[in-house]
């Protein structure tokens, strides 16, 4: 068996084992602990992991399960593709980044990320400006932080992520429902909960 590890994110130190499939169908999901931090990992054969749909979905699914399982827990997600030669190299990265990880864990403590996209109809009269001001104001009122994402399609009028307290998800969802009613000509896409990718800023240096 390979001793290489694929890492999904970092949580408060905990011995965790989850029966979920990770990237490349590998499992189980386990933790590697360094002092007060645990990295969530699965074994992997190769350190170059291909960015397929299945793999990116598995990466998200593992993080979601880690966030939601049991009482739920805070997770600082890593970007897709972080693989390490051994538990030792992973621990040395955790040692080097421990302050940043601790800070990030505090920043997103008890929070999840939710995504809201609004897609205009093909002949729609709505403009991005109209939508942005109104929608942003209403969602900011029920969230802690907002991040703008790429408007990669002409049809995409609005694409933002929100950092929301786990307990405030319902209130946020209600506002999203109101948006659906108020913009009948557009489609509102509501996604999550995600690990807070857009609200942590930990840079990991290659060893």
């Amino acid at each position, binding site marked *: 068996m390979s001793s290489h590890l694929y890492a999904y994110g970092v949580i408060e130190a905990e011995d965790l084992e989850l029966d979920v499939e990770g990237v490349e169908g590998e499992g189980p999901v386990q933790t590697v602990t360094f002092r007060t931090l645990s990295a969530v990992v699965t074994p992997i054969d190769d350190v170059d992991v291909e960015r397929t749909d299945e793999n990116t979905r598995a990466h998200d699914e593992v993080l979601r399960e880690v966030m939601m399982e049991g009482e739920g827990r805070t997770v600082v997600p890593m970007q897709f593709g972080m693989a390490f030669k051994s538990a030792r190299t992973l621990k040395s990265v955790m040692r080097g980044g421990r302050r940043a990880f601790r800070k990030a864990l505090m920043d997103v403590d008890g929070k999840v990320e939710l995504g809201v996209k609004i*897609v205009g109809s093909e002949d729609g009269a709505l403009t991005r400006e109209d939508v942005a001001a109104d929608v942003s104001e209403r969602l900011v009122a029920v969230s802690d932080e907002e991040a703008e994402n790429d408007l*990669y*399609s002409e*049809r995409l009028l609005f694409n933002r992520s929100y950092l929301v307290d786990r307990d405030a998800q319902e209130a946020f969802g209600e506002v999203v429902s109101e948006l659906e009613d108020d913009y009948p000509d557009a*489609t509102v*896409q509501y996604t999550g909960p995600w690990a807070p990718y857009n609200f942590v800023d930990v840079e990991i240096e290659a060893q």
Partner: protein
Amino acid sequence: MFLLDDILLWPITNVVDVLHSLAVQEMYDTESIQSDLKENQLLYEIGERDEAEYERERARLESELDAAERARERLSDKVVVQR
């Protein structure tokens, strides 16, 4: 050596270089193909495209992206001086 030549050619090469890389960027605009891929996914998710159409479009765009990436790699450090 060819210092004089170099200095004389310098502005021309530069302009051509810029024009060339703009052309490469436009012709093999991987970012816009990636946007098209994301748009395709979005329209599928909100039910505006059926699965067959989505898969067809995805296959088309992925091979386009593949070709564009290879072309960019091949052309990125080659400057064609047209005079």
